[in-house]
């Protein structure tokens, strides 16, 4: 079910991009780099964008983004697209939440042989 927008990030090397970066995002994996997300407005049933930032000089080589409603056991009906802005900053476009309630946005970043998952919860009224 977790399909995602995947971008090629072969040469993306993160620098310290963590100034004015939004809310911290939690990872369940120890050793995960600090990460932050900015979500300005989430309209119901309309596309929106967010920004995901990985802190420190972490060589991120891939990122996948998806979202789901745990209570309803369904995800989004559209694939978002990810743009690598460099310095560990990624813009995610084409997110669309078609129901009110609690959504979990999941970011999976690849650093070398490791994948670090992050979860950010959004409650949509």
């Amino acid at each position: 079910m977790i399909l995602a927008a995947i971008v090629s990030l072969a040469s993306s090397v993160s620098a310290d991009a963590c100034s004015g970066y939004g809310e911290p995002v939690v990872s369940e994996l120890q050793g995960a780099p600090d990460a932050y997300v900015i979500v300005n407005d989430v309209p119901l049933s309309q596309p929106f964008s967010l920004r995901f930032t990985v802190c420190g000089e972490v060589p991120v080589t891939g990122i996948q983004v998806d979202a789901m409603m745990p209570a309803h056991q369904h995800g989004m009906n559209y694939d978002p697209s990810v743009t690598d802005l460099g310095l560990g900053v990624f813009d995610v476009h084409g997110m669309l939440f078609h129901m009110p309630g609690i959504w979990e946005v999941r970011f999976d970043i690849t650093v070398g042989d490791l994948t670090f998952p992050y979860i950010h919860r959004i409650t949509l009224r």
Partner: protein
Amino acid sequence: MIARFSVAMLVLVGSARADVLLSDNEIAQTLAFGPWPPQATPDPSNRVSGDTKAIALGRALFDDPVLSVDGAMSCATCHDPQTAFASRQTRAMGREILARNTPALFNLRGLRWYGWGGDSDSLWAASLLPLISDVEMGHSAESLKNAVRESAHAPDYQTVFGDLLNQSPQTVLVNIAKVLAAYQETLATPRTSFDDFRDALERGDLEDAGQFPQAAQRGLQLFLGQGNCSFCHTGPSFSNNEFHDAGVPYFLSDTEVDPGRFDGLKALLTSPYTLAGDWSDDPERRGKWVSQNVRQSHADFGTFRTPSLRGVAATAPYMHDGSIADLDGVVRHYNDINLERMHADGEAILRPLELDEQQISDLVSFLETLGAIKPFK
């Protein structure tokens, strides 16, 4: 004197508040169902959207059997203006009994998807497909061009689109679909008592809001809460315009099924008539992301588009196959829903509601406040 006046005002405000049953949170949720009507903006993919001559031509063609290959039926044969542009038949009758109920044609401007299965991402594309369907109007592009050329509509067509003879049959087909869409964009449900209630809540006029029937208010509370209706029936049109398994059997017969969205997406993704395609008039191709980014999933099988509830009292029978005769039956369907009919790995939204008889009646009362539509001439 001032003190007495203040006390009197407090009593009045308290009384008015008591007549509004909704909590502050429910009021906030209710405001999201408006305002109504929404602002009307032309469809950039249809260059004749909003054009008065195109609308008039579309209206005339809508009622004219010239749009069927043998003159046997018009759009209005199924989408009857006397019955909210829907049909009282359970499943539509084209050249054979079709798989689905005829949907009403109100409030279609600017939707993301059209049709029960979402075969189209524009109103003009949704208007085109029945014209060339073998089991509906039965035309080919060539026969349609000839029929229009020989009809009384030819001069009006040429006023809107220029010389018909020098246009390809495909061009004429798309142009006809676009005037039909221009006409349908004008079909909108009027304001209802619910809209007056919602607007009174917005301006904090509890005395006015308190005039909304108590049964309908209780029904609205159920709509927002225990009924789970507002997960899918959202926004001013009461629809998220996406696709769900509503627990209605999708067997058409012992050997046939209606795949719903599953086939709708397959049709869309092979269609030349999308917002991403060459027949869109929008040089920016706004809206193309819909067909380019939409996900396909096996869970699409047997899902159907959430219908708007505006004017719902006038559009019986209900569900994608017209299998439920009235609103009371719809509420009872969800109240007693058979979870074994649902996708085992699909979304987990529906469950038996456990509403009692009074609650069922209240929920129906609320739905009826969303408007009964007068016949259109």
